[in-house]
């Protein structure tokens, strides 16, 4: 019995060795010069795949999707939007788009390193790639045409600066997705821009009641906190009621807009919202890819195309609020 088992193991090992001989290691992938047979068609309707790291039903990414689809409709481009928050799954969605031989690819790179092989494979297959939202610093390196987005760090800095202008002394930065790189960058940026004391607080976005009570606990236990920065419009609404319940004088600033935030800016409960105008991040890449295919146009001159930050406050909220309602801001 023992010898028989050993034989089987040895046979398996031999098979594995043969198969491994046909392998290419991840570091050893060499680039061949000519694009492969997978090259996209250059005539007929343009097909563009948008692959983001948003989750289904996310208010922010829904606006990006609306932007991409509106551009598709207006320009006669077939746009397909897919998303997965897990970097590995997102990479597989990119591989999927390459397998479909799309004519253009739009990718948000929240975790650039994980997407590197897939994005490079797309570029190698002759598919023009535009990165959006995050991943600006790796966009060109991976072979993308351009990057459309706002720098999370710069946006955080602007928010911090605004609080500083408002004369605040201590800032609470509320992170709602533990493990999200972009959110860490925003809070770090806010630290730089604010200059004063900044404290991070972690809450869970999928549990609004918990988010509210944690913010309430934080502002109550530390009365010196006079400013709260939330990184999402839903969390902003929670922060407003938390500050009110705790009787805190803290003022709320937030990232991203929704109708609640618009109403809160009107009433003064929220002092500003950092809008990165993500509609443009959906719309512009589709337009750029169309221009690239039909007219070989490129934009940005090697620099990213910035969509924000646009700080919306009481002075601009009326006009912008209208567009929030129709899902384009």
């Amino acid at each position, binding site marked *: 019995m023992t010898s028989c088992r050993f034989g089987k193991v040895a046979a398996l090992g031999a098979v594995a060795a043969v198969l491994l001989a046909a*392998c290419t290691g*991840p570091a050893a992938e060499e680039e061949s010069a000519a694009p492969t047979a997978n090259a996209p068609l250059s005539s007929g309707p343009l097909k563009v795949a948008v692959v983001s790291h948003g989750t*289904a039903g996310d208010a922010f990414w829904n606006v990006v999707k609306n932007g991409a689809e509106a551009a598709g409709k207006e320009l006669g481009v077939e746009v397909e939007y*897919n998303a997965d928050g*897990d*970097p*590995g799954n997102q990479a597989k969605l990119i591989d999927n788009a390459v397998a479909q031989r799309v004519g253009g690819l739009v990718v948000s790179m929240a975790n650039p390193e994980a997407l590197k092989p897939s994005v490079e494979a797309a570029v190698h297959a002759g598919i023009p790639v535009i990165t959006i939202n995050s991943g600006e610093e790796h966009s060109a390196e991976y072979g993308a045409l351009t990057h459309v987005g706002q720098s999370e760090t710069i946006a955080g800095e602007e928010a911090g600066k605004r609080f500083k202008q408002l004369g605040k002394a201590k800032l609470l930065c509320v992170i709602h997705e533990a493990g999200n790189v972009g959110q860490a960058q925003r809070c770090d940026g806010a630290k730089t821009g604010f200059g004063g004391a900044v404290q991070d607080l972690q809450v869970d976005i999928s549990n609004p009641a918990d988010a509210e009570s944690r913010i309430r606990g934080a502002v109550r236990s530390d009365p010196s906190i006079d400013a709260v920065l939330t990184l999402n419009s839903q969390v902003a609404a929670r922060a407003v009621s938390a500050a009110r319940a705790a009787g805190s004088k803290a003022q709320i600033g937030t990232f991203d807009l929704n109708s609640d935030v618009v109403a809160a800016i009107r009433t003064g409960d929220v002092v500003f919202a950092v809008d990165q105008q993500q509609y443009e991040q959906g719309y512009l890449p589709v337009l750029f890819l169309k221009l690239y295919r039909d007219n070989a146009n490129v934009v940005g001159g090697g620099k990213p195309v910035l969509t924000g930050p646009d700080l919306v406050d009481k002075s601009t909220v009326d006009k912008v609020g209208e567009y929030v309602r129709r899902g384009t801001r």
Partner: protein
Amino acid sequence: MTAIDERLAKPRPLDRLVVRPEIGALIGAVVVFAFFTVAADQFLSGDGVATWLDDASTLGIMAVAVSLLMIGGEFDLSAGVMTASTSLVTAILATEAGLNVWLALLVSLVFALAVGAFNGWLVLRTGLPSFIVTLGTFLALQGLNLGVTKLVTGTVAVSGMRGTDGYASAGFVFASTVDIGGTKFQISILWWLGVAAAAAWLLVRTRFGNWVFAVGGSAQSSRAVGVPVARTKILLFMGTALAGWLVGSINILRFATVQANQGIGLEFQYIIAAVIGGCLLTGGFGSAIGAAIGALIFGMARQGIVFARWDNDWFMLFLGVMLLSAVLVNNAFRRRAERVRR
């Protein structure tokens, strides 16, 4: 027929087929495959096949190990987070401590096996349901992942694996691609096939496999006939941890980076794949091959929906309907199988 004892009667070939736990999954896989082959142009192209096999592979490795554990009558809710924990241990040791990747992999393997053994030991020692115990480890690991990562790197992800010692050779084993007819297939597919074959062999050809069915069917009666219940169950928990390490290693070497919140929620996908594959939630019945096929259905459906260019807003609905129908088909077959046995 009355002359022969019915227990000695030879079952008809069709009846022999339907008593197999994986038959429902196999039919489901054929249906899903046929459906997307017709519905989506590129589904059957080389690149298309490589994409959905890739998606199914890492899920399949975990589903196979989880199916063995479920046949043994236990759950492991920490299995999803374990894939991230092992990635993080490997990545932190390699990038921050400067260890050779192979050594880092070895340390994270020891870590995984220790957590698996701890899960098993605690379940048996306390007599608590494994659902509760592994829920505890799930939460603890989730907290450790985030806490340690932030403590060591100051941010919420570890990256930079591509520049470490031994990355090329380790990547060759865990994250390379095999070129077949100009299409690149991920090596994780081979691991998946290997793990499924090994688990199937272990389950139906070895004494250990008999023990697994016995402890899942009834721990007490198997203890009475001399089956080492504790050892079997602890080994099964270590098995899911080992699979978690394998998938974690594949992920970290392929993507070269790991986020602290990775893997959360995947444990349910493993259980779902195992259930589609014919495993009973109550233990004592199921198949490793079935779980591998369950993962295949998952991969084909998940990528097939994208290939078919359907609006992804409806994706979860489709997945839910598909899972329910797969389980219902399984159930119908199991009832028929029980009739055949009688």
